[in-house]
């Protein structure tokens, strides 16, 4: 009887804590989305009136739209390249024992340890020295460095769950190593690859700290653009653009999840 009561209290308490944590996590996003529909001239909560005028302004804004395009373009490229490099690294770490394996493993994870600001300054100096600051490469490389550790970790996790007997069976059925990877390994770890791609996309798409150092006039990313904008003015167009960012991110995640689901059904 007593323990029933304790159980009950614990359950309710747990639910309340969970609810609090979730709402704390979601609250900033909810505030931003809500205030983007305001009709007043300042960002405030609760919004006063309801209008889409800030969305119209966002869509009409050359700077924001080109920044959205830059961000999307960079994030997609980063996902693809990070996936290729990350898969290769994870495969090597998982399958082979070679000299410098520990080093590669450490290298793959090290960006998680180096503070982003340090990384940004370092890359800025490097590219200034190479005289490449007016190109997209600093941004691409900076984001790759951030994204690859996540990809390596995610792919390593799926590879270690993957049954290598299947690859041996394929090889016994006359499949060459390349055919084995293409027809057995990759299809079977596809869910892991797709979640790795999501990680890479989100890491690149939302990054401010490193991007701030590496953007130049011609290709500012959206988060950096919002950051700069909010520094000088406080009108709700920033909220509208942020909402667009959330929508793009969600769209990517949902599309990829659909892909995984479809693959599982097949």
């Amino acid at each position, binding site marked *: 009887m007593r323990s029933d009561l304790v159980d009950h209290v614990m359950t309710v308490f747990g639910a309340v804590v969970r609810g609090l944590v979730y709402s704390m996590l979601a609250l900033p996003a909810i505030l931003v989305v809500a205030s983007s529909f305001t009709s007043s001239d300042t960002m405030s909560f609760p919004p006063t009136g309801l209008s889409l005028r800030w969305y119209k302004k966002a869509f009409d804004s050359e700077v924001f739209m080109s920044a959205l395009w830059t961000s999307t373009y960079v994030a997609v490229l980063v996902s693809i390249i990070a996936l290729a490099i990350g898969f290769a690294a994870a495969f090597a770490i998982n399958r082979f024992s070679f000299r410098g394996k520990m080093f590669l493993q450490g290298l793959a994870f090290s960006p998680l340890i180096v503070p982003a600001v340090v990384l940004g300054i370092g890359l800025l100096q490097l590219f200034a020295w190479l005289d490449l600051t007016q190109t997209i490469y600093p941004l691409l490389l900076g984001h790759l460095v951030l994204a690859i550790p996540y990809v390596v970790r995610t792919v390593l996790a799926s590879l270690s769950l993957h049954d290598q*007997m299947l690859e*041996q*069976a*394929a*090889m*016994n*059925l*006359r499949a060459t190593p390349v055919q084995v990877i293409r027809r057995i390994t990759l*299809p079977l770890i596809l869910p892991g690859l797709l979640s790795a791609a999501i990680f890479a996309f989100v890491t690149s798409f939302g990054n401010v700290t490193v991007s701030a150092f590496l953007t130049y006039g011609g290709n500012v990313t959206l988060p950096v653009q919002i950051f700069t904008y909010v520094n000088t003015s406080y009108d709700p167009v920033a909220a509208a653009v942020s909402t667009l960012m959330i929508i793009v991110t969600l769209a990517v995640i949902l599309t990829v999840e659909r892909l995984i689901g479809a693959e599982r059904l097949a």
Partner: protein
Amino acid sequence: MLALLPECENVREAGDFVVELKSVSKRYGEVLAVAKVSLGVRRGELLCLLGPSGCGKTTTLRMVAGFVEPTSGTVSINGADMTHQPPYRRDTGMVFQSYALFPHMTVAENIAFGLENLKWPRDKREARVEEMLKLVELPHLAHRFPSQLSGGQQQRIALARALAMRPAVLLLDEPFSNLDALLRVRMREELREVVRTVNVTTLFVTHDQEEALTMSDRIVVMNAGHVEQVGTPGDIYEAPSTPFVARFIGWCSLLKGMVGPDGAFTSSAELRLTGNWSAGPSTAVIRPEHIKLSADSAAGSSHQARVLHAHYYGGATRLLLDLNGEHLTMQERFSFGSQPKPGDVVDITINTHEIRVIPADERP
């Protein structure tokens, strides 16, 4: 396959061995997993590697398939040296212990996989898949996924997939160990039948002596990485060439002792068995069926023994006997109620014509 004929000499030398291992060893660090194993699998036969856990059966099989590279020695298939060839260049078909069916492919796609890699045209592939499904009596499962099959069905599909390519040799590593006892016996018979139907040379690994005795044409008994004996199931059971083989196959009592100049065996506990064996230190192998109760205690070669244990197990009783300090096992059917009890003294006769006496120096 053309790749199989690089040296004509080899072909002639190989005779009719489909697979031949010559003095093959495999070392893992300190562990010598396989030690100088030489054996040949004859065309069309079912050869079984039998031995206790860890004796190197799987390692040997995987060296034939190409997943393990020997430390020394050579492996040839159809007369061609395959020692350093990767698995996908070897003409073998393997059934894995866990079946290893591809979970993202249907049964038909699984079976067609090898044929695609061999570049068979589509129509021939489809016909072959159908033929294989018929062979294993599962034509209605072509479009299922492996996860939708029972263990026995998965096993049969794995067999169909391995045989579809018409490999020179079929390799099986304890293929029944994931099945329950009843299904195991049925699958054993099925496998035997399928192998006979397609007449494929087969190398089979098991640690189950019954499986080996009932299925094989010949058995290779392995122990601690080396070959103890090669022979037909009858040879292995009736004429074990080492005490290890005798103990590993079937029940037996082993008596250490000496064969004197008169050819009679005397155990270390002074039990004397008359015969015509060659002199020297030896081990006598006495199987339960070599000992009978003698009705008449006056009969020539009979002994008096004390019963230590009596185990009744449906129909017959197994008795552990003490004979001058030697322990012997026998088996007998007693009428209800007349079963001896521990402590009883019984008269027994040992059939000295059937027992085997192994000279101690037969193996280095």
